């Protein structure tokens, strides 16, 4: 479970990029955050993962505060950033072993998970190549495997489907749903509203650093008084007029 409590953040004094954000991502939930470019999606994720300091409020991950108990909080999640720029000079296997050591994953489980996931994502044969030789999609797959390998209760994924081929995209969506069904949390940001519509149990709409909506897609449609697609509801709720 991830709880965001009265969180505000400003890069420049007086100009809030995130303004009093409040919502909770329950267990058993695939939670999507959607919003226009520059709305504050990545900033929110950066604050949850400890990359960005929080000016006001707090974020709890399975009850652990990212500001007060950062190490314990960080052990509770796995994170896939929006740009798969990673340690390019390492091989895929070296990177997975690095993450395995950081999260203290048992070698047998590590082997089992890497074999299973790397084969499913189609990068098994490339694991001994340097990451610099990987395509954008392959890097993304490697990052996803590194998260799934240490099997955290909470998955935090920033635009995880960008650059993935259809097979990998389908697989990841399936894994996200399965993970949530097991009583865990999947929190992700996306621009692709179709994806949000298909897999999210709940969504949050962020616009100009403020949460303008939290609930199910059905509730969003009701609120925006549209009965067609999520796209239409989204456009209506983020409309400035």
């Amino acid at each position: 479970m991830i709880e965001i409590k009265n969180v505000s953040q400003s890069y420049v004094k007086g100009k809030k990029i995130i303004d009093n954000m409040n919502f909770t991502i329950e267990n058993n939930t695939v939670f999507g955050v959607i919003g226009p470019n520059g709305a504050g999606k990545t900033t929110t994720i950066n604050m949850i993962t400890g990359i960005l300091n929080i000016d006001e409020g707090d974020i709890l991950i399975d009850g652990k505060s990212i500001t007060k108990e950062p190490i314990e909080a960080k052990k509770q999640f796995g994170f896939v950033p929006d740009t798969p720029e990673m340690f390019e000079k390492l091989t895929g296997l070296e990177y997975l072993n690095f993450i395995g050591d950081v999260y203290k994953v048992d070698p047998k489980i590590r082997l089992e998970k890497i074999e299973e996931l790397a084969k499913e994502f189609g990068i098994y044969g490339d694991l001994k190549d340097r990451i610099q030789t990987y395509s954008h999609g392959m890097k993304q797959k490697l990052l996803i495997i590194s998260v799934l390998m240490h099997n955290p209760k909470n998955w935090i994924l920033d635009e995880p489907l960008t650059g993935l081929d259809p097979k990998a995209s389908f697989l990841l969506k399936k894994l996200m749903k399965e993970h949530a069904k097991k009583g865990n949390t999947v929190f992700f940001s996306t621009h692709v509203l179709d994806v949000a519509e298909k897999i999210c149990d709940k969504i949050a709409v962020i616009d100009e650093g403020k949460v303008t909506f939290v609930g199910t897609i059905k509730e969003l449609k009701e609120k925006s008084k549209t009965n067609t697609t999520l796209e239409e509801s989204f456009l209506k709720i983020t409309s400035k007029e």
Partner: protein
Amino acid sequence: MITSVVLKNSKRNEVIKSNKALTILAFIIVFGFISAIMIGFSVMTISRLREINQSNAFVNMLLLLNFIILFSESIFHSLNTLYFSKDLGIFLRLPIKPVKLVKAKIIDMIISQYQMEALMLAIPMFVYGIIMNMSISFYLFVIGILIILPVIPICITSLIVSILMRFTNFMKNKSVAMYITAIIALVFVWGIIANIGGGEQFTTDSFQNMIIHADGLANELSETFILMKPIMNILSKYNELSGIINLLIYFLESIAIYELVSFIISKIYLKGAIGTTVNGKKARNKLNKLELEDVQKGNVNLTYVKKELRIMLRTPIFLIQCVVMPIIYPIITAIAVVSILKFAQNMGLDVMSIIYENTRNATGFATFLSIGQAFFMLNFSSIIAVSKEARSGVLMKSYPISLEKQFKLKTIIGAGINLVPSTIISIGYYYCVQNILQTAILFVALFILNIIGEKVKLLIDLHNPQIKWNTEYTMMKQNTNVMYELFYTIMVIAILAISSVFVMNYLNIYAIIVLLILFVINIELSSNVLKNKEKIFKKLY
């Protein structure tokens, strides 16, 4: 237009989000210090040459030195700018003629050399002009030379690198291709430099013969280094018509070489450049079966340091600046010092007794510490500890490893490499003072000074992380954070020098006090990192 885009893109550094006044002050002090060194060196050299009626040789030696530096530097520079810069991914997609792109890249390289030339060429030349009471036209000629001097070395090196890259392009491992190209290019470039001298070798007799005649050394240099003859003649005959003619000849030569080289490179450029942006894999690395030993559990600290080391060793420019140079410089210096001392002893000079006399006091101790600090400055491991990882550097904040621990782990490589100069300096000190306890104190003091220095460098990097770089080379070479490192070094040396003067004859007391102060500073620094980690890492996002 494309030149302007290339220039802006390559020069754009991270915005410094600190106190502007302090930044300007640091820059003024650092540039002032370097300029002062260059001025002092120039005055001393010109005076010595004047005594033997060879002052004109200063100009020729300076031009030769700059030419050699330009040739050597431009190997990695051209490789990175032409083939390994991130903007290639964008430019190669656009309908731009290769010749335009090549010209833009060459101009970018030429302009980036002016900063180095300002320090290494302009300052000594102006000092020479003032001492020799030159007229205004001399300075105008110097500016003209400053502008055109980098053209030929950069063009020739770029051509060699491009030809080599065309043939090493088949290699899938781009780092290996880069190493091989750099090594072969280095051999070629040194071959050119060595063959610039077409004349006879210097002998003791010829040297004596040269210095008998006024400006004999300058004339011999211009005759020996044929390629440089026109440019050397420009300044020696600046007030004659031949000076203008030589400048014109060199200008036309430079333009012709620039046009010709740009044209030739453009014909072979695309294949090589596209090759570096295409992801290649080696078939022999293809993984068939993963074994349990491939995924053995490792100690997290060791794994972390290994990751840092791998990134450093597998990136040519990092390997050179962070590992090879910091080890080689002190070794070369030690060999040079020992050779000079032996030579002096063979000449019957009792240099050792002078050294013993001057090192067995507080100033001697401070001098050896200062030498150590100067060598530590040449090690860039910690000043790019975060920046070298580009955008992935921010991920360190999402790992369940405390920031203070990661801070320590990131300084280990730099501190480890600095043990080489520390050991060499301690051995040298032992030979001077012949006292094991004092040597041990110096070694420990050097060790703590080293640790403090690496922490300070990492703090500088975290204060202004350069994670949005275009190429590893530009991040390394145009990293303004290095100025702060230099500023820190100047401050340390100044404090050591000033403090030692007051207690010159109390070596033991001074050494122990320095050791204690360093110890306290180190503890304070660690506790400060622990207390303010949130603030220290704030700009890394």
